[in-house]
């Protein structure tokens, strides 16, 4: 299609293509008629319809950041094994949708050969939901893809096997905006700033709206101020907790700091309503350094938490459910993580997190 033709009939507001165009015939025929599913082996789902039809889904990992070369590869693999039908999951895996059981083994072999491991189903660690990091975002306190790659290289066996007590969802976000929605993950890896914004008074007055900059601060740390005769703002540093929201609305208040930026680890969140109601992630480790390209402190910390969980939790217990059963003091003891002042909430609803009961585990040891 030539550019001229396109210009002539500019279309807008057509929305996405209708999904029905992309569904394989077996899904169209059995839409809403699935009866049950099984997981015959890691990475494979078999859905059986009330009609008896069987759909074989093979799930493979992707790094989410994909070249069109890879997408074309996926397209040709789909053509070869699944009649051209595939989908992506809500956690950035790719799924090939086969009707022929015989295609499953060769499909898996091919995916592995191409370097896309098969797994992520059932009580395993599936793909890490993540964000842009240094690849694309101005706000990032760390890279996203790099940390995720380093982590998954380490956790890889947990993706390919189903040997955890329950599903274990890990998410990464590169700043407190939390585009990776780490606030409800079994393990959340969250990049943080730890210094107040550096204000460029020369440009602030021109680039930023002062009232909305002042309003952006959750703790009211920002005040209008005149600096060197220019309209600007000042930050009461003791009141700043480095959230970066001022930077979001005002480019002249930069947060990034090579020495002090780094990573925090949160645990025990979940989203599903299964058994326990959804829960937020809770702070486990306030800070680990940014140590590219492999972030060894971060990978070790996450691996330790996963291993302690794997060893101690009961069947079907997600991390948050396990900790709730054993109690937070025990979690810190088992993982060897230090409990600090930073673990105590001090924001608006802090008091709601205080232990307001005498129901405590005590032990003569301490």
């Amino acid at each position, binding site marked *: 299609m030539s550019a001229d033709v396109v210009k002539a009939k500019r279309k807008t507001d057509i929305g996405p293509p209708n999904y029905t165009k*992309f*569904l394989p015939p077996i899904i169209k025929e059995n839409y809403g008629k699935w009866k*049950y599913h099984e997981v015959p082996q890691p990475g494979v789902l078999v859905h059986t319809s009330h009609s008896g039809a069987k759909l074989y889904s093979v799930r493979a990992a992707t790094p989410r950041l994909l070249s069109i070369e890879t997408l074309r590869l996926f397209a040709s693999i789909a053509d070869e094994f699944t009649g051209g039908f595939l989908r992506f999951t809500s956690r950035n895996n790719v799924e090939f949708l086969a009707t022929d059981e015989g295609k499953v083994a060769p499909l898996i072999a091919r995916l592995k050969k191409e*370097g896309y491991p098969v797994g992520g189903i059932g009580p395993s660690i599936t793909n890490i939901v993540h964000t842009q990091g240094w690849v694309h975002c101005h706000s990032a306190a760390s890279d996203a893809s790099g940390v995720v790659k380093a982590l998954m290289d380490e956790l890889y066996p947990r993706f390919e096997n189903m040997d955890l007590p329950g599903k274990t969802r890990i998410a990464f976000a590169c700043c407190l905006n939390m585009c990776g929605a780490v606030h*409800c993950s079994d393990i959340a890896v969250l990049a943080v700033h730890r210094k107040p914004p550096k204000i460029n008074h020369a440009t602030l007055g021109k680039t930023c709206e002062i009232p909305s900059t002042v309003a952006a601060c959750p703790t009211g740390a920002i005040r209008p101020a005149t600096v060197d005769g220019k309209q600007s703002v000042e930050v009461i540093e003791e009141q700043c907790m480095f959230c970066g929201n001022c930077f979001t609305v005002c480019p002249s208040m930069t947060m990034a700091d090579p020495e002090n930026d780094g990573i925090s680890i949160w645990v025990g969140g979940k989203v599903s309503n299964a058994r326990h109601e959804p829960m937020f992630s809770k702070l486990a480790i306030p800070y680990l350094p940014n140590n590219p390209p492999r972030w060894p402190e971060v990978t070790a910390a996450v691996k330790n938490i996963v291993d302690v969980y794997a060893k101690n939790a009961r069947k079907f217990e997600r991390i948050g459910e396990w900790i709730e059963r054993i109690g937070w003091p025990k979690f810190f003891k088992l993982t060897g993580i230090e409990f600090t002042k930073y673990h105590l909430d001090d924001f*608006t609803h802090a008091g709601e997190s205080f232990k307001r009961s005498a129901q405590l585990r005590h032990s003569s040891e301490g």
Partner: protein
Amino acid sequence: MTDKKYPTPLLDDLEKGPWPSFVKEIKKSAKSPMVQDLLGLLERSYEEKIGHWKHGGLVGVQGYGGGVIGRYSDLPAEFPDVSEFHTIRVNQPSGWFYTSDALRTLCDIWDRHGSGLTNMHGSTGDIVFLGTKTTELEPIFSELTAAGFDLGGSGSDMRTPSCCNGMARCEWACYDTMAFCNDVTQTYQDELHRPAFPYKFKIKASGCPNDCVASIARSDMSVIGTWRDDIQIDPAAVKEYALAGKLDIGKDVAGRCPTKVIDWDGTTLAIDNSNCVKCMHCINVMPKALSPGKDRGATILIGAKAPIVQGALLASVLVPFIKLEQPYEDVKELIAAMWDLWAEHGKNRERIGEFIQRIGLGNFLEQIGLDPAPEMVIQPRTNPYIFYNL
């Protein structure tokens, strides 16, 4: 793979290891000069432990207020080909299903006009085209629409809705998530493309309480399938599970029911459905034997969001149960009422969840014409600060 313009020893390390490597992906697209410079810039970030992107300006396609995230490097002299490096959000088809042809069409467009790098998909659900220049935006848009695709949301608009694969591939879908997602996406094209709200508004649709799109944590309006009648039990299949011996039905099923309403005597499984809270656990672990009831619909929850400004919120119950049938007139009336109120009274950058907390749930309900129900709260108020209207 093209020759590298810059040495990238730190990034190269991330080509190793069993997990698929984003560095390899970037290098696969390295025939693009943009991608060459991206590698150089990113290596610099790895060396210096700091990002090298500046705030985006207002860039976009004609007549749209969203869908493009402008991005500029702060080292334009050193890395001129990423001095502009915008992303384009392309609205995914509901459920992220593709044919190989559709994928190739997208690749071809992006090959002609951008870096060749994508995110499949962004956290909100869009196809993300990662990195292009301002001049390419209009051509990309034209080719996308010609191919039947359109842009997703950004800024203070309705964001691209997303949904789990629901009835397409899941036995538990209590309503047709993909149909619903597609319907609201199409119905609100104007709201999606022309930001006119106080802040973003996200809709996510999950077919059952497992919530496979994390809607309760990440969407201003979360629609979660559920049912009102009794869990369907196939006693023969229950027996099979018991015999197979992999599952300890007493401990693993009954023992983990949150309201402890499952009775298992070793042969028969009985459920006090009036006290079942539709958590899905028993169904999840015995998919062959148990399934959701027949009187299906959804719960609508409202107000989830990330922490900024007042702290993260999970969505809270707004409509305990709704049948959720096409053409969704009831849901649309509700959406209209909420948007009207929020658009008029919401503050700048105030998500609807924060708005409700500010004006009070009681007032919010009154304004949108819903009756208060005890299902909306964990418990009635504990503080005696009641605004009696006399």
